[in-house]
Structure formats: C-alpha cells, structure tokens
C-alpha cells in the first residue's frame, strides 16, 4: 500500500484512503439493499396473498441467527480494540470468535434452507418465498465475502511483516465497517421477512 506522506495537507480530506473507500463501497451496498427492500415492498403491496412470518418460516431459528450475527458484530469490534492496543493474541482470539460465529450463522441458514427444500418449498413457490430466498441468499453471499476478508486478516496477523504494517489497523477497521453493515442489513431483513 502506498504510504503517502502528507505534503498535500491542505487538499487531503483527513480521512485515510482505505476508510473513505470502504464507506463509498458501503454506499453502493446501501443502494443495492435499498433496491431489494423497495422490490419487497412493491411486490408485497401488489400481492394477492402474503403469508404471515410465523406461518411460513421458522422464527425461533431466525431469532437465534440474529443473536449470532449481533454477537459476531461485537467480537469483531473487540478484535479492533485489541488490534488498536497492538495485542496480537487478543486480536487472534476475537477474530477467531467472529469467524466461528459467522460460520454458525451460515450453518443455521443451511438448516433453514434444507428444511424448506425438503418440504418442496423453493423460490418458485410464491412471490413471498421468491423474495425470501433472494434476499437472504444475497445476504448470505455477503456473509461469505465477509468471512473471506476476516480470515485473510486473521492469517495476516500471523505474519510479522503484515501485523507491523502501519495500515493494518485501517484494514481491520474497514473489515469491521463492512461486517457491521452486513449485520445492519440483517437487522432490517429479519423483521421484514419473518415478523411482519
């Protein structure tokens, strides 16, 4: 990464390139999920019948999933705190916890999908299930992306040269921002699909 010494202080925005880049990427992600939510609302208003979350889906399992994702948000913030204090052991522990929790989320998701597929319910069953599978599927892909990034950071904490790199904290913060965004999307997705 380029270490830019600050001789354009008057024209630099004060925010590191990496953080500004991550926030802009999150901006485009907000537009992506805003479109999906608009689709959900438009299709729901035009639908002839829209099942109640408790009838069509397994809400207790999803509540567990929400708890898992929220705790993974906390563990990644703890990892950032440990990286801030240059405590590599703490960082590795909390980042490992984040990865385990995100795998847990995917496992619970797999159970849910498997249960529905076994009953022959698929995206083509009804518009409700189409919206459900598409939105949770896309969210799941974002979770997998997050897992890849987080595991890369965990690996980098093991090699000395990357752990000492001045911008490593910025990378952890960037991964954290992305992960919190994925958590926020689930916070909106959970009531929209399951509870209303």
């Amino acid at each position, binding site marked *: 990464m380029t270490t830019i010494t600050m001789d354009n202080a008057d024209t630099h*925005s004060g925010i590191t390139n990496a953080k500004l880049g991550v926030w802009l990427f999150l901006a485009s992600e907000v537009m992506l999920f805003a479109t999906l939510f608009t689709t959900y609302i438009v299709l729901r208003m035009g639908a002839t019948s829209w099942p*109640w979350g408790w009838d069509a889906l397994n809400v207790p399992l999803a509540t567990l999933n929400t708890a898992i994702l929220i705790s993974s948000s906390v563990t990644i913030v703890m990892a950032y705190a440990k990286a801030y204090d240059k405590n590599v052991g703490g960082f590795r522990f909390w980042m490992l916890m984040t990865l385990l929790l995100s795998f847990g989320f995917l496992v619970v998701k797999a159970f849910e999908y498997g249960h529905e597929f076994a009953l022959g319910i698929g995206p083509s069953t009804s518009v409700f299930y189409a919206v459900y599978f598409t939105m949770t599927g896309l969210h799941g892909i974002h979770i997998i992306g997050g897992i890849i990034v987080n595991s890369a950071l965990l690996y980098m904490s093991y090699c000395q040269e990357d752990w000492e790199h001045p911008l490593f904290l910025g990378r952890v913060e960037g991964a954290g921002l992305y992960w919190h965004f994925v958590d926020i999307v689930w916070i909106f997705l959970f009531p929209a699909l399951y509870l209303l």
Partner: protein
Amino acid sequence: MAKSNDARAHDDHRPDVRKYMLVFGALLVLTCVTVVISKFHLPRPQAITLGLLVAVVKAGLVAAVFMHLWGEQKLVHKVLYVVAFFAAILILPLLDLRMVVSRITERMPVADQHPDEGAAPEAKPEAAPAPAPASAPAPKPAKKRAKSAPKNG
C-alpha cells in the same frame, strides 16, 4: 490533529470496551422485544411501525457505536446523507404502484381488516404442500411502509 495516513494517529476512535458490551446487551434485548411484539400478531399498521422502529434503533446503535459514526469526520456523514437522499428516491416506484393498483387485474381482495377479525379466511391452497397451515389472504396493506432501507448502513 496531525493528518497522516496511519489510521491510529488521527482516528481517535479509542475503543471503549464497556460501551461495546452495553450496546451488545441492548441489541439482544431489543431483538427479543421485537420477536415478542410480533407474536401478538398486531394489526398491520401497528406491527409495521413498531417493527420498523425497533429495527431503526438497533441499526442506529450498531452504526453509531460499533462503526464509530458518532465521532466520525464530517465528510463521512456527508457521504451518508447523499446516499440516504438517493436511496429515498427509490420510494417513487412504490408511489407509482399505489396509484396504478386500480389497473392491476390480479388485485388484492378488498378485505380490509385483519385476518383474525371475522373475515372467513378462505384457505388459499399453496402450490406446494406448505407445512404451515394454508396462509390466510393477507389483508389490504395499510399505509405505505416507511422506507426501511438501512438509512445509516
């Protein structure tokens, strides 16, 4: 603050572990609250506003504390305001559908009240043998739901 690109020097988001744990607890509690509320199966408008309110509070907590948006620089806030404005524009397709509902041939039955209050829910056979009891026709959706796109994602 010295403007250098090393994230630690000028990003004085000194992590405060106690605050993180507090927010963690609050999020778990709010999740349980929203699940319990939905169990009551309130009529449509109340359910939507309550569910949305809790979701916005939770998202706000995550964004402000975990994503350090509270003490963040003005430029990031500006980026988020711009995004919120453009995401809000996506409301117009909903507006269009509200006005065009009269033209859609496969329209919502006119049952306006909640399925449990009286309207005999004629069992609409799900195409596949749905496990849950055949879903009753959801009543006509209430006022347009506020934009639930994650505003401060």
